[in-house]
């Protein structure tokens, strides 16, 4: 604040001196006529060991902008420090590189359209860290959130993508591909889902064993922390919890919501939704699943303020049991992601167990009892989770169970694959390992089948639109011509991924919601960037420095 005051006093003095004819204070004559210098810029990028591609891409952009006479540098920043800067009260940053991971609930467009671009979230602490504010866009983002008719909603999402592509509030650099493998000699009929990969909620239910050994062995390189659904904080726990606990709705491999532990739902009106429960479900301890359990679970998650689901539960106003198998949800306002994001994520917990627990948030839940397709058997932290198939389940499952094996390093998993100790990986292979498996030296990976799915998440360079020069739309468009999208994909990612572009937040992998008709700024053309700047009134002074258009 003080800085700003001194700065403005200084400016006033400078102006006074120039007005009085003190020409020697400023440079050559013609520079006086020009706009202000483009302020110096710092890009907070990633540490090379944390994300090599982001680090490199930031460096490339710095070089391009330096050629155009912009004073710019990249500052590789630790992830936690970067989040501090982006979400902190001060909001002190010019530009940054970061990414949104392709978690399953982000297949619903609400997160990438509303949460990260709506002006309501543009204040410090909000997810709109680009500080993008456009009332026409806001109207569409609100409309898609409130539209319960999925086709109409899609139309709004399409239009919103159009605006983002024109306004370029961020520049998407690339998306990764989820490259994974499984043992094709032991199993077939696997399901591969964008953003999810092979170990999604369908593969264990539908996979077909080809040998007498019907236990699926899944490798992970990430530790599981807890099996308490109220305390689980990462997608890795949820990938297992959703198989032990059941959910009212699941997203099909084609990303359509389908009733699962329910026979169906009725949208009574925009803010009232009835869910009809199946009547043939039992918890693993033999107790019938009832509407009471559903009501109890949702209220528990709301009462206990479970952070992981906070934004999906916030719209719920009331939960009533209207008949034996029907639960009526009343919403505070129309919220379209209720079916695709809320009902597809909240598990059904047994009331008769959880109501007797003093502090559910801290409960260890050493032996989870759910009503899902798999029954918990054993969990050793840092080693493995063992589950067996629920033979009473309403769907027929062909395997006898699965073991979720936790390895310390991807190298360990590679060795285990070679030794036939593992049937499937649950994480994305690193490029070096993809090449090793593809080269298949000595035929030792003959038994493996490699699968590829595009990630719906993306990595991007974001700007602080509250600051010059990023408040200038033409400058952002020019920037989108300075990013070498092919370099990112072909060189840095070895081709395993997809290209980025200006304002591209929903990519082609998310087939249902992606709008292919929108023209995107996604060509690398520094000459064109220069032209755009010239057309927009940017000039270069006698020192070759870029100056803002004169107001």
């Amino acid at each position: 604040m003080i800085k700003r005051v001194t700065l403005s006093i200084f400016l006033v003095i400078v102006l006074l001196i120039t007005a009085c004819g003190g020409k020697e204070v400023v440079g050559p004559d013609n520079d006086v006529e020009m706009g202000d210098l483009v302020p110096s810029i710092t890009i907070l990028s990633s540490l090379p060991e944390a994300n090599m591609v982001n680090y490199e891409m930031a460096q490339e952009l710095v070089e391009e902008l330096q050629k155009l006479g912009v004073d710019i540098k990249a500052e590789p920043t630790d992830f936690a420090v970067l989040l501090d800067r982006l979400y902190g009260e001060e909001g002190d940053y010019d530009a940054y590189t970061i990414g949104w991971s392709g978690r399953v609930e982000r297949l619903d467009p609400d997160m990438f359209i509303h949460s990260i671009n709506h002006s309501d979230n543009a204040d410090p602490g909000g997810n709109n860290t680009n500080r993008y504010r456009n009332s026409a866009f806001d109207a569409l983002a609100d409309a898609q959130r409130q539209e319960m008719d999925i086709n109409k909603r899609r139309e709004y999402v399409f239009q919103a993508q159009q605006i983002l592509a024109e306004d370029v509030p961020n520049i998407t650099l690339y998306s990764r591909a989820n490259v994974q493998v499984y043992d094709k000699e032991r199993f077939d009929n696997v399901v591969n889902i964008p953003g999810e990969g092979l170990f999604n909620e369908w593969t264990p239910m539908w996979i077909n064993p080809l040998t007498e050994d019907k236990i699926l062995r899944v490798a992970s390189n990430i530790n599981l922390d807890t099996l308490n659904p109220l305390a689980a904080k990462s997608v890795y726990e949820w990938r297992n919890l959703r198989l032990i606990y059941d959910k009212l709705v699941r997203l099909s491999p084609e990303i359509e919501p389908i009733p699962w532990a329910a026979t169906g739902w009725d949208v009574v009106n925009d803010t009232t939704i009835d869910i009809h429960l199946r009547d043939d479900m039992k918890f693993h301890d033999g107790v019938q699943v009832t509407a009471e359990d559903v009501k109890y679970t949702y209220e528990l998650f709301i009462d206990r303020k479970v952070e992981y689901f906070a934004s999906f539960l916030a719209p719920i106003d009331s939960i009533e049991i209207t008949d034996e198998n029907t639960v009526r949800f009343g919403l505070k306002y129309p919220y379209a992601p209720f079916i695709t994001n809320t009902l597809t994520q909240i598990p059904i917990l047994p009331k008769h167990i959880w109501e007797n627990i003093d502090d559910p948030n801290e409960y260890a839940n050493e032996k989870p009892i759910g009503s899902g397709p798999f029954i918990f058997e054993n969990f050793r932290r840092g080693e493995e989770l063992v589950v067996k198939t629920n033979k009473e389940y309403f769907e027929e499952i062909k395997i006898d169970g699965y073991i979720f094996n936790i390895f310390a390093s991807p190298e360990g998993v590679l060795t285990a694959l070679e030794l036939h100790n593992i049937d499937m990986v649950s994480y994305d292979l690193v490029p070096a390992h993809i090449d090793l498996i593809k080269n298949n030296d000595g035929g030792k990976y003959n038994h493996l089948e490699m699968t590829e799915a595009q990630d719906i998440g993306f990595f991007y360079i974001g700007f602080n639109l509250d600051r010059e020069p990023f408040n200038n739309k033409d400058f952002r468009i020019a920037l989108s011509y300075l990013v070498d999208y092919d370099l990112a994909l072909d060189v840095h990612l070895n081709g395993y991924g997809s290209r980025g572009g200006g304002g591209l937040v929903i990519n082609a992998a998310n087939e249902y919601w992606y709008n292919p008709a929108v023209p995107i700024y996604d060509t690398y053309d520094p000459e064109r960037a220069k032209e755009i700047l010239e057309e927009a009134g940017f000039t270069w002074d006698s020192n070759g420095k870029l100056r803002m258009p004169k107001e």
Partner: protein
Amino acid sequence: MLGFIMKRIFTMVIMILLVSTMIFFLFRTMPGDPTAFIVDPSIPKEARDQLLERYGLNDSLWKQYTIFLKDLVRLDFGNSFFYGRPVTVIIKDLIPATLILMFTAMLFAYIIGILGGAWMAWKRGTKLESFGITISLIFRSAPSFWVGLMMILIFAVRLKWFPGQGMRTSGYTGETFREIFLTLDFLKHLILPSIVAGLYFVATPLLIMRNSMLEVLSEDYIEMAHAKGLKESKILYRHAARNALLPVITAGALFIGSAMGGLVLIEYVFSWPGLGREIQRAVVRHDYPLAQGAFIIIASLVMFMNLVADVLYVILDPRISYK
């Protein structure tokens, strides 16, 4: 003697308090928000603030420190931010695996180191001696993860003699300590990592033993033993080695602290579910309670082993006494 031990324990307590204070402030000077690793940044700001509140990170540093000290006296390290479980429980789960691996490796290193070091001093100046020194130094200097990977490649992948990963065959369900650690399956899994760690550790006892042996061998009483016509092996191991052991013992006790650090990479390569791996992760995740707890326990262990070394001195060398 008892008075000496009491005095040492008293200073140990003060040292632990000092170390804990340093660790406490060291972690809090690390830049970055610990909630970044606990929850996804996409959750609303209110929820993040709630978390900070729940973990007490909104309180003043002084208040946090006094709470930390109060809990420490009751041996309560708090709950891990990341796991949401008490730190003592997490460490209790992990420490047996690390200690078993460490002591097996140290036993291996010390048996070979002491016997080999004595023998090398005896064979001073021969090719065998320089060969022994070179080999031990190669294993000391080679990156332990590389040796580990090579061992896995040779013995687990090519020869298939031993398993190369984890602590036991997957799917095995044992509950008690006995069922988990006292099985043939566990021993098989223990062999490769403890050999790798042992080879990494062996240079220290070997070289110290050799040096102190050389000193002892030049003493008069050894010449006397020769003159008496005693058997060579008897002079070597009964008369000389016993007196040469003292520095090896102290070094060994001090070695334990660094040994735990040295195990981190080996635990990583062998997917060994131990403490080392978890400490590294806790620091990266800004999981203050877990990292603090683990470091304080390791520091206490080093101090305790120092005391053990001092007590062992008296037993091994009757000339030393503490008042």
